[in-house]
């Protein structure tokens, strides 16, 4: 090894340390840009992995059912149904299992605090928990060994100790009882309880038709479209109408991933933005550093440094600060992931998750490789320079480029200092383009973040029903949460309010200041093809603004319903389809007329006119009323006056002025603000770095300008003007790109959350906002150039003139 050294010790190490320490701005830019990119990458990949891992693992282990199909036993025999297990595309099947839906049951358990009502339950008859599809995991107790026994799904009451408790169904013929002998879990929730197949007929209401369930795995089941196609194949294999409903595994997967999956697309967008900016900035900084150190490189070579050592020196000067940034990025990414993963843990009830170590390692390695690859080209250029040329080039400022632009600009009616500044970007077009690209990405990030935050705000307003009303009115037996006095996680029986709903509605309508009102109640009913209970919202009054319409129309009378996107996907229905609600054994056909934006209850709500159900069950009435007031109506006075009327008839009004924001939206807003802030800072630092390089390279010219009378303000104006075109360009290019990114990412986020998005959430950029965002690029550029401009203004003229 020579005395100069081939490693990074000795002279080479000192050169690298000096290079890193001397160029503090460039070092800071490298640290922050790589930190930003790695933070976003760790967050995006970490959340993606964390959101998918638990479900994927369980689905694989249980040979989960891609589709759970429900068949009408009066239209197809069990043999015919069993034969669908050999239909085209089916790779494995289990069943047919006889099924029944029971409601108005009770369970008596100390773990649940006594006798509680049960939600409507889907019960399947299975002889054993295993099989080629939906291999159930027995969490407690044992499988059914005879009549009068049931294994309860863990989805119904969670991990409570229920073995030994008795399920009773007094409304059914013979008032059957079932003793819970075990608790099991199906990854896709194929049933709420399992009994022996022979037990099922005893649980069926008088006159109810027999039904069967088949569970399938398919060769192609990655998308909704493939599942729909597979479902079609099954339907075609049986007599018409035999297939009455189905449940896709994608529904369960969506539920499992719903807390973090929507976050991933925008994290990926920020990650990609950060990565590209990082590459641009690393390239810009290292080539700028080489360009500004030509004389130094020449001297190093004259002293005996080999080309390889020079290349390594400049690579190391990029890698050392980048490594610091990458390390900080990994830490920050892990720290920011904690609150998001905590939500995931709460959903699954799993132990606290952290970002998988392999993600940290991969992010570090990938970032280092990208930085090294980006820095290699300018470092190689430094290594190939001849010593004499490097010294000569470093001593003499390069001129020649951009002269035409300067001449043209010199003829424009602009202050001379501004004209001189505007000409600067043309002197080094490659550097200008690189920094312009960085600012474009900064402007893109700001535009994207603005749109995202606005859309999320509207999403929040859209899904927060309480948020849309000025005043809420509750019936006296109820409160804000007791519109349904349900028991169990899905709700069940309801306790109609003692107050007269119609009288309350009339009082609200007659109250001066009322602009509009709507009444709402929620019941758990069964829907054909959907296992367990489905939440059905019954509305009256002016309810059409309650949800944002995505497609179709609002219902105009009884027998019509609107449903969320996910309901359509899960049930394989579409606008115009008719579904069957079952209330206490009475079938109520309802036609779907619209698709609404609603993510509550995993997007499985059915929203219909109160009269749809009250025609069959007059006891069903509104439990809560939302009131919108006329403009100028005082909330407090209105509530007070209305309560005077409502008190005697059993209603109570309250002002809805206090509206809390869901924690996830606060979290997302914070996340967007942090990532956007980082991107903007990095973009501004890229400008700062360029302005510093320009100022250093043209320090002698600066001395001349000042010697011939350029004032402090004119100097600042000149430096700021040199970056202004870059900012304007960034605005012109970055804003449309940011809008396009928003328009692409939002639907992807919506899809991850299981819903399409209404037009109002997607269209968030107004003309004025677009112009203001366009000026954001200019603000970033001017902000980044302000410090170098001040330095330039403060530079002593005599010292600048001596600099060559």
């Amino acid at each position, binding site marked *: 090894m020579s005395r100069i050294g081939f490693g990074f010790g000795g002279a080479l190490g000192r050169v690298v340390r000096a290079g890193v320490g001397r160029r503090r701005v460039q070092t800071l830019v490298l640290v922050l840009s790589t930190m930003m990119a790695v933070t976003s990458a760790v967050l995006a990949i970490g959340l993606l992995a964390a959101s998918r891992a638990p479900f994927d693992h369980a689905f694989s282990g249980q040979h989960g059912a891609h589709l759970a199909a429900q068949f009408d036993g009066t239209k197809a025999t069990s043999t015919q149904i069993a034969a669908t297990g050999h239909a085209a595309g089916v790779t494995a099947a289990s069943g047919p299992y006889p099924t029944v839906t029971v409601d108005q049951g009770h369970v008596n358990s100390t773990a649940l605090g006594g006798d509680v009502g049960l939600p409507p339950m889907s019960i399947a008859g299975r002889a054993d928990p295993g099989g080629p599809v939906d291999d159930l995991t027995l969490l407690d107790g044992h499988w059914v060994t005879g009549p009068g026994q049931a294994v309860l799904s863990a989805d119904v009451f969670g991990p409570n100790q229920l073995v030994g408790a008795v399920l009773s169904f007094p409304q059914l013929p013979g008032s059957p009882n079932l003793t819970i002998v075990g608790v099991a879990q199906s990854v896709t929730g194929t049933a709420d309880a399992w009994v022996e197949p022979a037990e099922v007929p005893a649980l069926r209401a008088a006159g109810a038709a027999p039904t069967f369930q088949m569970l399938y795995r398919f060769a192609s089941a990655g998308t909704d479209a493939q599942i729909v196609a597979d479902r079609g194949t099954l339907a075609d294999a049986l007599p018409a109408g035999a297939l009455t409903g189905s449940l896709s595994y994608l529904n369960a997967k969506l539920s499992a991933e719903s807390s973090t999956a929507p976050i991933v697309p925008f994290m990926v967008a920020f990650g990609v933005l950060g990565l590209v900016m990082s590459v641009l900035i690393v390239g810009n900084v290292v080539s700028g550093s080489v360009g500004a150190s030509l004389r130094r490189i020449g001297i190093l070579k004259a002293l005996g440094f080999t080309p390889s050592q020079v290349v390594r020196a400049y690579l190391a000067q990029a890698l050392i600060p980048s490594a610091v940034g990458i390390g900080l990025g990994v830490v920050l990414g892990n720290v920011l992931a904690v609150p998001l993963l905590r939500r995931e843990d709460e959903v699954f009830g799993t132990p606290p998750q952290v970002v998988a170590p392999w993600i940290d390692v991969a992010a570090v390695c990938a970032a280092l490789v990208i930085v090294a690859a980006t820095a290699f080209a300018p470092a190689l250029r430094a290594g190939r320079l001849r010593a004499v040329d490097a010294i000569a080039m470093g001593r003499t400022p390069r001129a020649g480029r951009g002269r035409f632009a*300067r001449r043209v600009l*010199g003829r424009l009616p602009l202050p001379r200092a501004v004209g001189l500044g505007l000409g600067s970007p043309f002197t080094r077009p490659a550097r200008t383009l690189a920094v312009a690209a960085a600012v474009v990405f900064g402007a893109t990030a700001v535009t994207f973040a603005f749109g995202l935050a606005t859309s999320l705000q509207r999403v929040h307003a859209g899904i927060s029903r309480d948020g849309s009303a000025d005043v809420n009115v509750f019936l006296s037996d109820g409160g804000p949460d007791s519109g349904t006095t349900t028991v169990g996680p899905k709700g069940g029986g309801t306790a109609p309010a003692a107050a007269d709903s119609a009288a309350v509605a009339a009082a609200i309508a007659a109250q001066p200041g009322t602009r509009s009102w709507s009444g709402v109640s929620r019941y758990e009913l069964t829907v054909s093809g959907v296992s367990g209970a489905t939440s059905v919202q019954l509305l009256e009054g002016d309810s059409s603004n309650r949800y944002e319409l995505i497609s179709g129309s609002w219902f105009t009378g009884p027998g019509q319903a609107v449903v969320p996107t996910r309901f359509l996907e899960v049930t394989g229905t579409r606008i115009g389809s008719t579904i069957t609600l079952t209330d206490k054994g009475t079938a109520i056909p309802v036609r779907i007329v619209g698709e609404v934006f609603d993510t509550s209850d995993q997007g499985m709500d059915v929203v219909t006119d109160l009269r749809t159900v009250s025609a069959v069950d007059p006891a069903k009435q509104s439990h809560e009323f939302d009131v919108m007031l006329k403009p100028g109506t005082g909330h407090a006075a209105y509530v007070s006056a209305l309560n005077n009327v409502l008190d005697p008839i059993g209603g109570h009004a309250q002002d809805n002025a206090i509206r809390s924001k869901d924690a996830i939206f606060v979290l997302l807003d914070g996340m967007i603000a942090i990532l956007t802030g980082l991107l903007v800072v990095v973009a501004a630092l890229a400008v700062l770095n360029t302005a510093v390089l320009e100022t250093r390279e043209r320090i002698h010219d600066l001395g001349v300008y000042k010697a011939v009378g350029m*004032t*402090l303000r004119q100097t600042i104006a000149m430096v700021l003007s040199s970056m202004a075109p870059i900012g304007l360009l960034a605005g012109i290019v970055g804003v449309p790109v940011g809008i396009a990114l928003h328009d692409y990412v939002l639907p992807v986020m919506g899809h991850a959350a299981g819903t399409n998005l209404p037009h109002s959430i997607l269209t968030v950029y107004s003309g004025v906002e677009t112009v203001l965002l366009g000026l954001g690029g200019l603000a970033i550029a001017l902000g980044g150039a302000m410090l170098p401009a001040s330095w330039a203004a403060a530079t002593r003229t005599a010292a600048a003139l001596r600099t060559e």
Partner: protein
Amino acid sequence: MDAPLIELRQVSKRYDDGPPAVDDLSLSVERGEAVAILGPSGSGKSTVLNMIAGLDRPTAGSVLVEGLRVDGLGESGSAKYRRDRIGMVFQFFNLLDDLTVADNVMLPAQLSGMPRARARARAAELLETLGIDRHAHAYPGRLSGGERQRVAVARALINRPALLLADEPTGALDTASGRDVRELLSELNQDGQTILLVTHDIQLAESCATRTIRLVDGRIASDSAVPSVAGPAGGAR
């Protein structure tokens, strides 16, 4: 009698803890004079020039030009002073390579806010007077040293300064170009332009200065009129 154009009163300049670059120096220059400051390297002559130009500040004493305390000016005040009252010519010309000859010459006028048309007319007049108008649209890199220095002089004179400061104006020129610049400065002084130049070039001092001041270790070693050259404006001899 009019107040002197330049007046240095007991001016000292010390850099860090070293010996004084200029030591208790007093000096006055009348309008119309062409004063050459001579001296070996490190004698303080460039420091004196920089202090008069407002590029450097004395550690002690005061510098007045046209009665204005130059040493008390802020950055903006210094810049305005330089563009309105003085013109500077440097050894290495200090022309801006990215600007044409005409644009270089017009620059101080434009920075002063002079309308472009007037600045262009004044630049054309100067370039013609100095015999380089054919190079108006050329870039400085294509000109000879003498021509570049003429451009620098034109730029220095664009705002009709009371004082022309020249720092080794022939130091980077060959013999012919040096002679050319000497004649130019001499002509300017004969037309009434006050000139203060710093030089090693005794020939330059003798041919175009009306007075020579020799500095040694920051002090005036001699201050004498040059009898062979008599400017029409007279001056304090």
